[in-house]
């Protein structure tokens, strides 16, 4: 029941769902939600391997930094979303077609 595979399968499901959210949703905030799910899947993998395979805590450090980077990414990403909304008055991803102006 509680072994490496169950964690890996959960993380696989999280990853796939995150990927589908990123592809299917047209809302930029929803795409950021998908990215968070993907990052969580990888962090979960690191911790699971660290407990069941390597038997040291380097995996924990990795997932710690993944969480840190996810937070920084969310901060910058949402700032871009807000700026985009100020310019275009929408946050539909298909409206993002111009590199400037």
């Amino acid at each position, binding site marked *: 029941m509680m072994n490496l595979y169950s964690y890996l399968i959960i993380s696989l499901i999280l990853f796939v769902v995150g990927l589908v959210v990123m592809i299917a949703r047209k809302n930029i905030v929803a795409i950021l939600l998908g990215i968070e799910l993907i990052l969580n899947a990888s962090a979960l993998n690191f911790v699971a391997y660290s407990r069941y395979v390597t038997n040291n805590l380097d995996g924990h450090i990795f997932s710690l930094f993944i*969480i840190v980077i996810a937070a920084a990414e969310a901060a910058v990403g*949402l*700032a871009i979303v*807000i700026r985009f909304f100020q310019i275009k008055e929408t946050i539909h991803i298909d409206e993002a077609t111009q590199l400037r102006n």
Partner: protein
Amino acid sequence: MIPAEFDGLMPVVIFMGLAVLLFFGGHFLSVVLAPKKPSHLKSTPYECGELPVGSAWSMFNVRFYVVGLIFIIFDVESVLMFPVASIFKELNEMGQGGYALIIFLSFISVLIEGIAYCWRKGDLDWVKSFQHSLKKETK
């Protein structure tokens, strides 16, 4: 071998479970005891007696986001500082206090730069910079 029940997870889960139980129990009691006479006027949002105009889900000032942004960066930095702070005493007793102090202070000094930048650029004032931008607009 020590069974997992002795570890601290169980009380945490029990307390969360109690919160959920209390919540649904209270709802149940309220369903049983409370009167139920719904009317349209009763369930309009409260707006001091006036009929509400429009939805409350409107746009808010970007200030709120900037505050949240500064918060999340500091939050993450404090998360990283927690394990280092909790072994600081141990390192000090092992004679590595100076090394730990340098690492710790250099980490915090970057934190201070962040807050100094936001302070200087006026992200920390709530009203003043708003008036500032208003003034620009009237020009």
